[in-house]
């Protein structure tokens, strides 16, 4: 199995605990079905890929492409900044969640300059290359899904999911996630996978004032997405 990469992603949340100060720790686990089939080979050469004879082929990774979001009725406070590292031929995480209004800072930690652009809004990212070790930042103002890529490197793609909440959690290889302290209230739990929201009934999560609240959600087989 390809290891689940959780490093190089950081969320800086300012005012994580808001309101009356009463909050519960929300964590949970996604019941992950078997990974979907490996997509067709991209940029096939003269030959189709062949499995090596020494070890079974790894299934495609699922966890890096998953996000779990808790959306409440109250308007969230915007975090100051979300950092996203460009590590070479890929981003540190292929999918990141960003609260509306937060500043996304892309850091190029590779040796190659890139010219990134959002497919859904070419003006979202300031034009110009991101030189090695140099940053590039932008601030999405509305909830949306943005596909960030480099036209000179079609394989380099990352997805920015802009949501109206600051309670966004990544998932490890086992499906576990942790929101930390969440104010008391009723929330809807939504799961994002790769390029869209998982097509499943939204779970209602009632966060108590105190204590630890465990949430469990089941992902349908095949990871179907809402249209």
């Amino acid at each position: 199995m390809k290891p689940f990469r959780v490093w190089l992603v950081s969320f800086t949340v300012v005012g994580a605990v808001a309101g009356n100060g009463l909050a519960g720790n929300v964590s949970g686990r996604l019941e992950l079905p078997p990974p979907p089939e490996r997509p067709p080979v991209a940029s096939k050469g003269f030959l189709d890929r062949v499995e090596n004879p020494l070890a079974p082929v790894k299934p495609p990774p699922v966890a890096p492409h998953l996000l779990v979001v808790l959306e409440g009725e109250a308007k969230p406070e915007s975090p100051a900044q979300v950092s996203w590292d460009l590590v070479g031929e890929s981003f540190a995480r292929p999918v990141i969640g960003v609260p509306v209004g937060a500043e996304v800072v892309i850091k190029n930690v590779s040796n190659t300059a890139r010219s990134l652009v959002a497919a859904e809004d070419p003006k979202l990212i300031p034009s110009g290359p991101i030189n090695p070790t140099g940053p590039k930042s932008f601030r999405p103002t509305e909830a949306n899904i943005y596909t960030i890529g480099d036209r000179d490197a079609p394989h380099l793609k990352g997805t920015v999911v802009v949501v109206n909440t600051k309670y966004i959690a990544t998932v490890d290889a086992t499906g576990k996630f942790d929101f930390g302290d969440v104010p008391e209230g009723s929330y809807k739990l939504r799961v994002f996978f790769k390029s869209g929201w998982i097509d499943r009934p939204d779970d209602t999560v009632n966060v108590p004032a105190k204590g630890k609240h465990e949430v469990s959600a089941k992902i349908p087989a095949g990871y179907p997405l809402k249209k």
Partner: protein
Amino acid sequence: MFFSKIWFFLVAVAAAIALTIALVMPRPAQRAMVNEEHQRITVACGVIDILLTDDARNRIDLAGSFARTSEIVGALESASGADKLDDARMKQVRGVGEGVMKTIQGSRKPDFAILIDKRGRVVARVQLDENDYGDVLAGRPLVDDALAGYLRDDLWVQNGTMYFVTASPVVKRDPPVEYVGAIVLGHAVTNELSKKLVGSLGVDVGFYLGGDTVAGSKTLALDMTPMTAAVAKLKGDLSGDCAATHPIQVRAGNEDYTALVARLPGEAAQKKAFYTVYTKRPQELGFAATLKIVRQGDLSMATFPWIIVGAVFLIALAVGIGLMFFEADRPLRRLTADAVRLAKGETERLAEDAHPGKFGSIARSVNIAIDKLGRDAKSAKKDLDGLLGPAPEGSLGTIDLLATALPSSRPGGPAPAVAAPPSEFRFSGSGPTPSGPQHPRPGTPPPRPATPPPFKTVQTQPGHTPAPPSALGGSRHPTPAPLPVPTPAPASVSAPLSLDDDILGGFESEGRGTVDPYFKSVYDQFVSTKQSCGEPTAGLTYEKFAEKLVRNRDDLTSKTGCKDVRFTVYVKDGKAALKATPVKDEA
């Protein structure tokens, strides 16, 4: 001549067709050659695709072998466990890679190698950007697939150079079996590789990236515009490009080339990488150009159907000559022979029905001319009679009994070379001219000597004394008219005698003792004339003379159908002569 004309028409049509074929044939040949060239270039493109695929298979095998090297497995296993890669580890792993690279010899030796740990980080690079490490190559499809356990190939473009790259996972085979990384090997697309690909194909190949030339088997600056335009039209599966596309014409300097483009797969395809198989376009061949390139061997007996050509030529020639002979030469020869017979007097007219076609027309025209001449002659005779007076009444003509019958050697010396007086033996119409002494042609005025005739004529008539020539002013003969001897009564005569039988000899006929007064009169005139001319008359007897006259009279009567014959005595060349004239009408 009908079939000759048909034959010449057919020969002309065949010649025109042959000329048309000769002029037109180079064009289909040119098209066939172009099609063959297209076929050849399409096949070459497919072969190059096969060679590249086969090469990819070999490179994958090489990458698999490279990844199975224990030193590589150990180095990447160690690197994968490290949170941070440093320079020392990079150099150590690079050294391992270089060591493995050295074991690969020949054309299979990669131009670079990249060693990647299981996290996707570049631990070391060999022979390309050797000092770069630590960056994440995970994300590139080739590397992702290799890290997942697949062997595959791809085409990368690094720093303007195109590489055939292959990747293989690196697997630790000792329990627990696990993936510890991947390796990537790269082979640059070079001119040498291009030459090797087309070595036995008879074409050239070039590799291009967008509008830039990457490598090629020949250093040639082909016009990129038509090639990039052709590439832009290509859709669907790349492997079918060679068969799906049509050859295009491209130029390089002043030379034209036929080219076939095919897209290259992999990441390079997204940068519009393609290769072009091309060959120099053959020159347009016309009739003259085709003749110029004919070789001696093309005309040898083994390759050229000389026998058939010769046979056709001989058949055409024989048929033409045969038709000419049967339709022209032979009829003309017949007409010529017929005309010669006509000229000789062997025939009166040309046989019209014996000559076909135009020759019959010629014969008819000649016959018409003959008829016209006859009519003209009759008309001319009438005119001459009107001018000179009528011929002796009842006369059918005269015959000079001595002109040919008498020996040339006569007493008194040979006859002078003066034309004999005209001895006409006329027949009615334009009948055939009897052979024998030449007579003046009808319609031709009789010759009138400017000098007085060299002889004197004594004409006797039965019961009359010879009249002076002036009394015969109606005679149309230029010589003094002989005195006619009165026509005797028919007498029974036996076998005719020739005048040459010597009228001076004895007379032995049954008429001996019988004296015909007319013959006696002629005899007396003849003797008198001879005496007057000083000729001897000894031996000249009446009996023989009369016998001769009877014989000639009978002969003339039987031949001409005349009623009687009148004999005339006259002087010819100073000697006595006798002339017989048939009398048509007794009255």
